[in-house]
């Protein structure tokens, strides 16, 4: 259940045209042109998220080369605010959806598991621009986080066991306290007058 108002779609469409230079589709280099984005350490992940079929609500997989306006809006819709009157079930669903988005940003090869390599990669990128932490540190931190995850989600492991990586279920459990449904919100999607549900 996605609720985005016509007005918001209008706003987004304007932006879409602006980004794509009045073309019908957006490509990666269009995103690379955004100035403010240049400072973002995880720019690559964000941009990929827009070209990731998993985020299009169609149970697709893999990457696309260009996206149309519809996909653009669908990806953006992950950041809509929750409506005021939601049942617990809906809340849970929204939560899953939003966390899924984050999860997909980590899980680049789409095997449903964030492996150590994948996680390291993200953390390295994430900490790369802070300028204060070296690469080695980032790696250590990623490893430490992974270890911690393993100890939380599996508990005791036999020596020969191997923790493959974070599954989505673990991810959900680990971020239980993370109030994503009230935080993964962008203001522009908040102007709900007439809503379009799809």
């Amino acid at each position: 259940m996605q609720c985005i108002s016509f007005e918001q779609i209008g706003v987004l469409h304007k932006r879409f045209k602006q980004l794509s230079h009045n073309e019908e589709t957006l490509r990666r280099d269009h995103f690379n042109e955004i100035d403010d984005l240049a400072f973002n350490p995880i720019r690559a992940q964000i941009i990929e998220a827009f070209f990731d079929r998993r985020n299009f609500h169609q149970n697709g997989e893999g990457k696309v080369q260009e996206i149309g306006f519809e996909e653009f809006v669908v990806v953006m819709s992950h950041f809509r605010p929750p409506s005021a009157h939601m049942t617990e079930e809906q809340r849970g669903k929204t939560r899953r959806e939003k966390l899924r988005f984050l999860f997909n940003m980590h899980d680049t090869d789409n095997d449903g598991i964030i492996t150590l390599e994948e996680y390291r990669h993200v953390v390295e990128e994430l900490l790369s621009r802070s300028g204060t932490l070296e690469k080695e540190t980032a790696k250590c931190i990623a490893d430490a986080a992974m270890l911690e995850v393993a100890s939380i989600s599996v508990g005791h492991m036999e020596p020969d066991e191997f923790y493959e990586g974070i599954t989505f279920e673990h991810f959900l459990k680990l971020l239980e306290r993370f109030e994503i449904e009230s935080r993964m919100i962008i203001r522009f999607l908040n102007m709900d007058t007439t809503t379009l549900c799809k």
Partner: protein
Amino acid sequence: MLRCGYALFWLLESVLLICVVSSVKGEAVVTREGSHLKLSESSHSNESQHGHSSNITGIPIISFKWHHVETPYLVAFWVLVSFLGKLVIEANHHVTSVIPESALLICFGFILGGMIWAADKVQTFRLTPTVFFFYLLPQVILDAGYHMPNKLFFTNLGGILVHAVIGTCWNAASLGLSLWGCQMGGAMGDLDIGLLQYLLFGSLMAAVDPVAVIAVFEQVHVNDVLFIMVFGESLLNDGVTVVLFNVFDAFVSLGGPKIDAAEIIKGIVSFFVVAFGGSLVGLVFGLLISLLTRCTKNIQIIEPGFIFVLGYLSYLTAEMLSLSAILSIVFCGMCCQKYINANMDENSVQTVRYAMKAFANGSETIIFVFLGISAIDKVIWVWNTGFILLTLLFVLVYRFIGVFFLTWILNRYRLVPLEFVDQVIMSYGGLRGAVAYGLAVMLDENKIKEKNLMVCTTLIVVYFTVILQGITMKPLVMWLKVKRAAVTEVSLLEKLTNKMFNHTLVAIEDISGQIGHNYMRSKWKYFEENWMSWILMKPSARKKQDQVFDVFHQLNLKDAMEYVTEGERRGSLEFVRNENSIIDFKKKSESESFDINNTNMSNDHGAMSTTSRDPIPSVSLEMHEQIMKAVREAEAINAHHLLDQHLYKSRKQHRHRFSRSHFDINRDEKEVQEIFQRTMRNRMKSFTSAKMGVKPPKTIVKHTQKEQQQKMPNGKSMDKAKTSYSGDEGSEGDSASGYDQSYMRATYRAGAGIENPAFMPDLDPMDLLQIPPWLGESELDSSMVALSHRAQVDLPRTPSNLRRLAPLRISTRSTDSFTLENIPDTQQMDSDQLQPPPPPPRPPRDDGYV
């Protein structure tokens, strides 16, 4: 037993505090006991004493000079009494869980006041505005500002400001006007109070008191947003109230007829000037503190003093410029917290935190007790049922109306609206406290005839809100099912995800072309990181300020602690049992192991030994050495570098040297150190050997592909090694303690990844235990090595020392016990070859890390 220990500790601390407080308050008391001192009499008695002493011929061996010490003595005594009261109250947890401490302290004050009243027939002690505003309030507010969760505060700044400014004005105006209206309507008889006086009264009643709010809310763990709304509002509106109060006070002095539009506009302008000017003064002082702590490396011992002194000065400066002192000290604390925490030595940071809490808590206690004592005074009790009850009613009702109305407006702009129950709690959390009382006492009796009535009403409102609302707050929060704060600790993954998430939000805002909250925040952060930090922070400190890094640090620390605890749990006895186990070595890689000799710092080397705790000789294991590559080494050093600052360091023994400026680590008295090290080493070794005996093979196989090398320690041999070490190396013991780096941490983190969290910690020491194969042979000898005299004396005690030294280990700053094993190893080899022990390699140290 435990509680008794705490009690003693508290007592000690309070006594210490008294010393400080009494010196600070020396002056204050003159005002506090102004009525009591009877200066003429005391000077007279001084004279008589003087005369008396000149009369006697000899030198009096002892003389009783009460008046000489009276003032500071009384202050100290009162502080002591308040603290003892708190001590007693805190000892009864089942009571404080129902009734908040602040309420109990006020009641304690009642009792004390009653006793004084009974003795003196007049209330000789009461809270005077000077004492309160100059000596009690600043530290409470400074503490609040210093511990303010900045991000949360600024995220909700809009809401807080609306409530603090508009809400307070609304409360003041509505209360004043309604009371005036009621008087006009004849509800409270004949009172000589004009409209302006009512507004003045309204303004002093309007402030929600931070002291009371913290006291109540810290026991009810409501969610963060709600807490910051109430708390932030209470802090800021104090400033606002004081400003309002001053403006109205000026109006009252001016007199009704003289007030025209120009004066009112001037009043409004002064309101803003006072509020923003105060904040500005605070910011300036905050930056000053940050700058100062940048260069206090050489005077760490008085480093914490700067924060207190400058904080207090910011308060006084603002007061001097007749700006808002409270706002000034709040912003001073908020502004400097980040930089001073990064700049100062960890010890100083702890000191500041502790001292801040001690001061704040101490004055809070005194404030509440004196609020109670002040009530027992016949002079101020002027009863006017109408006035008092109406005030109570209006205070409560208008608070509700104001909060609901303002939140309604705010919710239209908030992404996450404040819920209904939150609003109820916000309204109900409008506790009045000592600020209102302090202001009421400050009223000028000449201008306001009914001052006593106002004071008395203020007191009743304070008691009502603090005691009644305080008690009912917790049940109400439960009953309304207000979202509570998550009390769990934050995991590293959460921190990382959080960080990533924030970047994502910014990116989405960028992509959608919005200038929103996140956009602003990221721009600020960029500015802050590139300019503010650069100016205000030590270069070396910038690295450590990262939040993620912080958690990483915490995690490392925790790991280390658990590791040692575990070691201790298994340790000492294993050690004893291991004595008679049989050791068998398969020397597969002697040649490689020799490499270790070159005092290689990085322990990535493989050395192989088999272990067997059981008499059956033994699992023999393949070892996987890796010749160290330069790159790898550099990497490892890098990591060590980072880690060595955070690892477990044992408490250092402080030499009792009579130096005020240096708090030296004991490097001469080797004995303590030596015993400690030896026991630690024992513990670690036996621990590892015990662990390894259980499941070595699988792990080793596991790690074949890893860069990390598995070393199979030999418990027995290490025990021997260390024995001989301590014998030979008695004098080297201290130098060893100088090294607090841990190599295996780094490699463990870097290489082992997520293999098996439960198992990993056990692997750590392996890296350190590089036992050259020849050790196996030399071992028998080494156990026979003639021990130094001291070692002979000490050794037998070792097992019992383990227990005795156990508490030492808990301290977070302690010489890294893991790495202690490091040094002995290399030295061991040398000593085996009958070489004099070379000075162990000095690892590169981070210069900034002090």
